[in-house]
């Protein structure tokens, strides 16, 4: 355990954890877009900035990204100083200039009293804020299907060479982790479309309900040594089967005990 001070209150933090986790545990609302517990922090959105100091720093302070800054004994953290609020407002205005249509950004900006950006709005801007949560989760999965391609203004996330990613398995982890909901996908009958690729969705052998993509199921079978039989039914039908099987066992046991 490490003792730090957050907004004037002494609190306990776990050794090795980042400031953001300790701050959130206190129920303090710090905006953060690029953070997710399943991926390594990368500090790209800059919204989680906090001010830190220590007694021995003699009044000097530093602004750091709390998602990337490990807790240290004696750290004194402020999350809502006037300077930080200004900083966040500026960042949000920049996001608003790039992703003016994003509801998530609009809502966050509104919470900080901003309705429009003082920066020129990028006419062909989109909702991608270049945080790479999607590419990082895909790496975590072990697929490495998508990455940033090109540089500067043309930079974007896509499959290699701006083509549909051949290594994608259609699991949707990237789409679900994307903080602005920019990654679009669609399930239509037994076909899932994402990253301009089409995937076959497995159907429950009993009721026909669609589950995950065949590629994802096969990936899990191979990587985690799971039998194909586990993927044949949907969860509802598996519960029904469980009741039947257990029921039979109970009846058989009762016979034996008679």
């Amino acid at each position, binding site marked *: 355990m490490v003792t730090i001070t957050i907004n004037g209150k002494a609190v306990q933090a776990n050794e090795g954890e980042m400031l953001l986790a300790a701050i959130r545990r206190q129920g303090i609302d710090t905006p953060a877009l690029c953070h*997710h517990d399943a991926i390594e922090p990368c500090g790209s959105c800059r919204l989680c900035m906090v001010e830190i100091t220590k007694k021995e720093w003699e009044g000097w302070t530093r602004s750091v990204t709390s998602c990337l800054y490990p807790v240290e004994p004696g750290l004194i953290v402020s999350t809502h100083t006037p300077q930080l609020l200004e900083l966040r407002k500026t960042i949000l205005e920049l996001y608003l200039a790039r992703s003016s249509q994003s509801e998530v950004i609009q809502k966050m900006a509104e919470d900080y009293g901003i309705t429009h950006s003082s920066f020129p709005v990028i006419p062909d801007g989109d909702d991608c804020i270049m945080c790479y949560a999607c590419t990082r989760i895909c790496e975590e999965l072990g697929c490495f299907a998508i990455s940033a391609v090109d540089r500067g203004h043309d930079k974007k996330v896509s499959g290699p060479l701006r083509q549909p990613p051949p290594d994608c398995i259609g699991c*949707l*982890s990237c789409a679900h982790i994307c903080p602005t909901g920019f990654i679009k996908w669609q399930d239509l009958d037994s076909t899932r479309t994402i990253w301009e690729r089409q995937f076959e969705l497995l159907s429950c052998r009993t009721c026909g309900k669609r589950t*995950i993509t065949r590629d994802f199921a096969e990936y*899990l079978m191979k990587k985690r040594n*799971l039998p194909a039989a*586990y993927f044949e039914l949907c969860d509802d039908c598996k519960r029904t089967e469980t009741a039947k099987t*257990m*029921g039979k066992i109970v009846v058989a046991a009762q016979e034996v005990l008679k």
Partner: protein
Amino acid sequence: MKYRFIVDPVLCTGCRTCELACAFSHARNLKQGRSRIYPLTHEKDKYVPVVCLQCDDAACVKSCMFDALRRNEETGAIDLDVARCVKCMACIAACPFGCALVDEVHNEIVKCDLCKGDPACAHFCPSKALRYTKIAVR
């Protein structure tokens, strides 16, 4: 001595009180959670409360590529860490008993965590088909 969650289908009358207890104890923002337990009938007047078995070599744990499902050594249950979950549905597809679920109201993946060591369903089961009792384990 450790606690064990015991499911005794012979005593189950299919009253579904456990389902209600589960849904209410997982309520948030005045909305019920999805029940993690399902008393299902398999033959006329015969019921089995279907609930997570907290398997030793659990398919859900294996299937999660993001380590969101882990054994809680204190309760013995497999807990789902919502902050790590990306809702890929692998666990739901993989669990052979159908006990990893989507809570559509709260938009998250859920499974039985034995209420962190004090299962609400066992408290409310009127026929004692669900019990949480001390048991000697080697």
